[in-house]
Structure formats: structure tokens, C-alpha cells
């Protein structure tokens, strides 16, 4: 049973697909490929910061590698470098496929991709050199920002062009989410920069703008793209339609309305009018509605097809992502409660939650997108099933170690902090072993990333030996083996 091949399609439709994929190839491969390089950089920066928190002497005394700078680089390269590029590649390719049109403005998008990467390099070097703006998630110096914003405008234009020239009659649920991302993200970035770094608002209102942005960049950019991917991939791979149209409609609009208001829970207990925090808590709790509806839609579609998880790399990552979407969102909603925040707010628990969402939900769905898309875009199969297996297990195990260590340590840390009889340094010493455990988790994640990178480099380099059928997880397919076999055969002939 081949799960990765799409069901037989009519000849004209197949032609369209070849046309769409062929025109998307350079752009999408550039975006996805560079996103993986940024993921590697982000993971390395995360690892360095993680080690520094249990062994402060590690790379100590070097100013540009001090914790506060590497930590900022870690998050910004993760969200803009990996997240931004992986999501943009996904957005463009999904929209082209769902509209059944050629990728428009290829040169513009390619130039945009290169400029975006240059902007990321400048921003990263800027932070390391001490030019951070000091506003969390918007640390990139202002002079690097135009290089990130302008290319995104190209993406928005391409997205709308495709949408308005679509040859299909229907609009699929993924397309609502993609449309939403393109409307939200530019408004989000520009108004947040205006309110914080450009000083349009003052004092603590700036803090609200900061966390309105910090929460929404995940909720209105990363999340909708990943949900769009899940809505596309799960039915595609298992060959069944999505469970309920009406639920997807409810899920979309409730997500759009409530996520927007959730950000202020990041300031619970802070020097703000209580009503602003209450709004954030209410918004967060209302998120149960979209999360449950989207969850039902994804999981009910999967019902009866779980055996395919054994073979399909795409499905395995997509299902991991959509399951953790449900779990991490439940965790997030409960976390927003004031009683919960009293303990966990200023602790490693929050860091655990962020990684649960980003590396348990968003990243696996982007990986799933690439595992599904790359063979179609390159007309070449993944060359090693073993590397995919390594990638999957490293992602799952590394992320789990990370999240469990941080969440547990965070709760204990918070309870101890609320007991003034415990000296602060005792709390710091208590967390150190868990911080070391996190480094182990991070190392495992890095291993997985490198495995994926190797496979990715192989699929974009043309090679002689390839397969006619998809690379499934239960095969022992390995490119090296094939090469060796060929050699042996040649020797036999001689």
C-alpha cells in the first residue's frame, strides 16, 4: 500500500499539477531550504543559551556570545528565520496548489527570499553586536526590519494574485487561513513596531503592544499556517474528506476572534489596569472553542486511518503536530488563569510551553509539509528512510524531554518562589539539573535537524539513482546502499 501517492487523477488535472509544481519549485525550495538552515542556527543558539544557564562559564567572557544576546538570537531566528521562511514557502505552494494556478512573480519572490535572508543575517549580527532594540520578539534593529517587511509584501501580493486568478470554484478551508495570515502579519508587524520601537505609545501601553504582538506572532502567523497545512495534508494522505465543513467554519472564526485578545495574559500581575489582563484571560479561555472544533475535525478525519502512521512520514509528522496542537493549546488556555499564573508566570514553565507549541505543533507540521511537498516539487524521492525515522524520533523524544523537564522544574520553581522562606539561590540551584536535562533534549533535537538537513540536501541535488515509489518509513531504503549495490553489480559484470 502506497500512502504517499495521490489517488489516480484524470490526465488534465495531472497536467495542471505538474505545471503548478514546476512553477513553484525554485521559490518554494529556496524558502524551505533556507528555513532549515535557520532552524539549525536557531537550534545551535538555543543550545548555547541552554548550556550557559547550567554552566555559566561556557563560552564566558565573550561579550557577543553573552546569554542575553544568544537567547534573543535563538528566538528571533527560530520565529522569523525558520518560522517565517517555512511558513511562507508553505503558504505560497499551498495557495498555488489549491487555486491550481502557476506561481506568479517568480523572480520577485526569489529576490524577496534572498533579501529576507540578508535581513535575517543583519538582524542576527546586529543583536550579537549589541544593537538589540530590547523589545522581546522585536529585537532586530530597526535598520534590518525593512529587509524583512518588503519581501513579505511580495508574498502578500503573490497570494492575492493567485487567489483572484484561481481556476477552482471552491475555496478550501486551508485557503481561509492562508488569506488570514497574509492580512494579519503585515498589520501585526507594522503596528507593533510603530507602538514599541517607534514610540507611538508610552509606558506600560508599550508593554501591552509588545505582548499583543509576541502572542499574536505565534497565534496569527505560525498557528494558522500550520493549521492550513494540517487541513491540507491529513485528508490528502489518507484520501478522505475533512470531517465537517461547519466545524471548520466555526473553528476558523472563533480562532480569528479570540486569539487576537489573548496576548495580555503575558503580563498577569503586572502594573496594568486589571481589565486589560482580564480580557487576555477571557480570550485565552475562549480559545477552547476553536481548539476543540479544529481538534475534532482533524482527529475525526484520522479515525480509522491510524495504521498509516506506520508508513507515511508526512502523516506521522502531521498527526504529531495536530495532536500536540490540541494538547499545547489546552495547556496554554489553563496557563492563562490568574491562579495558574501566580505560580508559573515568571518560570521555566512558560519556556516549556512555548517549545511544546513551536516544536511539538508548528515545526512538525512544517516538516510534514516538506516531506509531502519536496518529492513532488523535485520529482525525486527522499533518499533515506532511516534519516526520516531518525528525524521523527529525535523530534518527538527531544521535544518531550525538553518540555517535561521545563514544565516540571517551572512548577516547582514557581511554588518555591512564592514561599519567601526559601532563599532565592536555593531555587536557582534546584533548577540546574533540569536545565541540564534541557540541554540533552536540545542536543537530540539538533541531531534530528541535521538528519533532516542531510536528506534535504540530497533531495535537491540531482542524482542518478532514484526510486519510482515513495520513500515509506517501513523500508530500509538508503541511498548509500543503492550506490554500493550498483558498484557490486558492475564488479560482477566485469
Amino acid at each position: 500500500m502506497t500512502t504517499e501517492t495521490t489517488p489516480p487523477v484524470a490526465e488534465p488535472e495531472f497536467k495542471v499539477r505538474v505545471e503548478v509544481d514546476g512553477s513553484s519549485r525554485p521559490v518554494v525550495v529556496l524558502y524551505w531550504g533556507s528555513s532549515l538552515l535557520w532552524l539549525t542556527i536557531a537550534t545551535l543558539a538555543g543550545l548555547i543559551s541552554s548550556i550557559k544557564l547550567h554552566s555559566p562559564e561556557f563560552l564566558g567572557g565573550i561579550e557577543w556570545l553573552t546569554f542575553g544576546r544568544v537567547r534573543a538570537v535563538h528566538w528571533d531566528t527560530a520565529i522569523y528565520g525558520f518560522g517565517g521562511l517555512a511558513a511562507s514557502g508553505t503558504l505560497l505552494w499551498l495557495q498555488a496548489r489549491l487555486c491550481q494556478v502557476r506561481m506568479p512573480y517568480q523572480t520577485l519572490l526569489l529576490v524577496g527570499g534572498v533579501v529576507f535572508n540578508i535581513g535575517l543575517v543583519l538582524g542576527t549580527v546586529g543583536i550579537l553586536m549589541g544593537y538589540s532594540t530590547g523589545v522581546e520578539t522585536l529585537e532586530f534593529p530597526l535598520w534590518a526590519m525593512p529587509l524583512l517587511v518588503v519581501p513579505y509584501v511580495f508574498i502578500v501580493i503573490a497570494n492575492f494574485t493567485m487567489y483572484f486568478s484561481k481556476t477552482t470554484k471552491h475555496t478550501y478551508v486551508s485557503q481561509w487561513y492562508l488569506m488570514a495570515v497574509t492580512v494579519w502579519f503585515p498589520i501585526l508587524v507594522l503596528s507593533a513596531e510603530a507602538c514599541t520601537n517607534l514610540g507611538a505609545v508610552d509606558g506600560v501601553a508599550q508593554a501591552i503592544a509588545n505582548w499583543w504582538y509576541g502572542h499574536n506572532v505565534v497565534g496569527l502567523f505560525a498557528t494558522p499556517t500550520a493549521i492550513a497545512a494540517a487541513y491540507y495534508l491529513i485528508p490528502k494522505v489518507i484520501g478522505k474528506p475533512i470531517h465537517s465543513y461547519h466545524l471548520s467554519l466555526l473553528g476558523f472564526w472563533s480562532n480569528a476572534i479570540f486569539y487576537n485578545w489573548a496576548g495580555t495574559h503575558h503580563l498577569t500581575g503586572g502594573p496594568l489596569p486589571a481589565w486589560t489582563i482580564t480580557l487576555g484571560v477571557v480570550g485565552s479561555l475562549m480559545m477552547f472553542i476553536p481548539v476543540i472544533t479544529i481538534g475534532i475535525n482533524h482527529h475525526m478525519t484520522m479515525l480509522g486511518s491510524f495504521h498509516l502512521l506506520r508508513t507515511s512520514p508526512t502523516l506521522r509528522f502531521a498527526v504529531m503536530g495536530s495532536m500536540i496542537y490540541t494538547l499545547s493549546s489546552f495547556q496554554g488556555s489553563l496557563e492563562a488563569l490568574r491562579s495558574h499564573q501566580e505560580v508559573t508566570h515568571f518560570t521555566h514553565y512558560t519556556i516549556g510551553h512555548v517549545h511544546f507549541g513551536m516544536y511539538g505543533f508548528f515545526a512538525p507540521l512544517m516538516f510534514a509539509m516538506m516531506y509531502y511537498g519536496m518529492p513532488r516539487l523535485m520529482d525525486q524521492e527522499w533518499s533515506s528512510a532511516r534519516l526520516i525515522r531518525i528525524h521523527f524520533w529525535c523530534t518527538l523524544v527531544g521535544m518531550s524531554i525538553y518540555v517535561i523537564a521545563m514544565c516540571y522544574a517551572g512548577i516547582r520553581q514557581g511554588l518555591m518562589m512564592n514561599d519567601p522562606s526559601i532563599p532565592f539561590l536555593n531555587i536557582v540551584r534546584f533548577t540546574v539539573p533540569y536545565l541540564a536535562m534541557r540541554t540533552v533534549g536540545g542536543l537530540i533535537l539538533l541531531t534530528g535537524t541535521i538528519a533532516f538537513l542531510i536528506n534535504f540536501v540530497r533531495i535537491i541535488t540531482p542524482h542518478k539513482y532514484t526510486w519510482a515509489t515513495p520513500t515509506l518509513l517501513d523500508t530500509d531504503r538508503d541511498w548509500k546502499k543503492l550506490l554500493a549495490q550498483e558498484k557490486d553489480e558492475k564488479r560482477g559484470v566485469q
Partner: protein
Amino acid sequence: MSRTFLLAFGIFLTIASSITGLVIIPNWQFKELKPVVKLDGTRYPEVYFGDQARGRAIYINQGCIYCHTQQVRMKGYGADIRRGWGTRRSVPRDYLVDKPHQLGTMRTGPDLASIGARQPSVDWHALHLYNPQITSPGSVMPRFEYLFREIRGGEMVSADAIKIPPGRQPGDATHIVPTDRGRALIAYLKRLDQSYPLPEANQ
């Protein structure tokens, strides 16, 4: 076409309403906040100038915010006041001159809203920044030794040099002197003080 427009417009409304409700309205509400004039004629909060302003920039570019908050939660919510991090809760007026804000969301290290009042000694700050293990054994804070100049044995000791406690001296360094940047950062930290009793903090 009209349905697409409706979709895009609805999406736009969701974000426009949240930024209005969460950012623009509170900002408008804070507009009437002014610094208070204290009995001695000085203002609270006073704008940052000179070393304090330069020190704040160093606080920002070293990324102190990733481990330290500058906000004290109210009595009965957490143990901020009982831990001695402040004498009262923080209020919006405390942050009138903070651009960009440095409220922070993480307490790998303790809160710094009133660190200037809690640790008034320049020597303590200098030693702590130079090597946190001297003042706070077991701390995971990085050393900021590049903000200091070490004075070796036999060298002339300047007036503002700070003695490194015996047993903690690396090599033959006996004293440290903060560089201009180190001096600025210490000036900023010493200025952090929210102990002035603003009336709204008791409401």
C-alpha cells in the same frame, strides 16, 4: 468576489478591534498620568540622563530582561513583597519614562524593580557583575568581566578600585575598576527604586 472581500474584511476587523481594545484605549487612559513632584521638589519618575541613560542602554543590549523582571506584583499575589523585592506593587506611573519598557517575563534571577534600594552599595554591584559567584555562590548569571578592568598586583591602585575578596582573585588581579560602561550600568541599577509611595499603589 464579494465573499472574498467579506472574508478579508472580517479578518481585518478581528485584528483592528484587538489593537484598539488592548493598546490604543489603555494608552489613551494613561495619557493623563504625570510624574509626581516630591516634597524636595524633585520629580518621580525622573527621566534618565547621563550615566543612567547609558547604563539603561547597556542593560538592554546585554539582554538582562531575559532573566530579570522589573515589576512587583501586589500583596497576596505571589510573594514579591514578602521576598523584599519591593515595598509596594508597581503601577503604570512607575514606567512613565521607560522607553522601551523592560518589564520582563522571566525570573531566572530575582526582580530588579527596586534593586537600587535593596543593594545601595557600588562595591556589591561591581563585584556581582564582575563575577556573580563572589556575591551569590551558585548563581547562573554570566560574568560581565568585560565591563571591568583588572588591576594586577604591583600596579598603582586608583581611588575607585574595588578590592576582590582574597581567594576570589584570578591570577594576580587584586582589584577591579569598572570601565565607563560598567560605571554606567551600575548607575542605572542603583537608580532602580520604586519605593516612593505613589497613592494609587495602595488602592
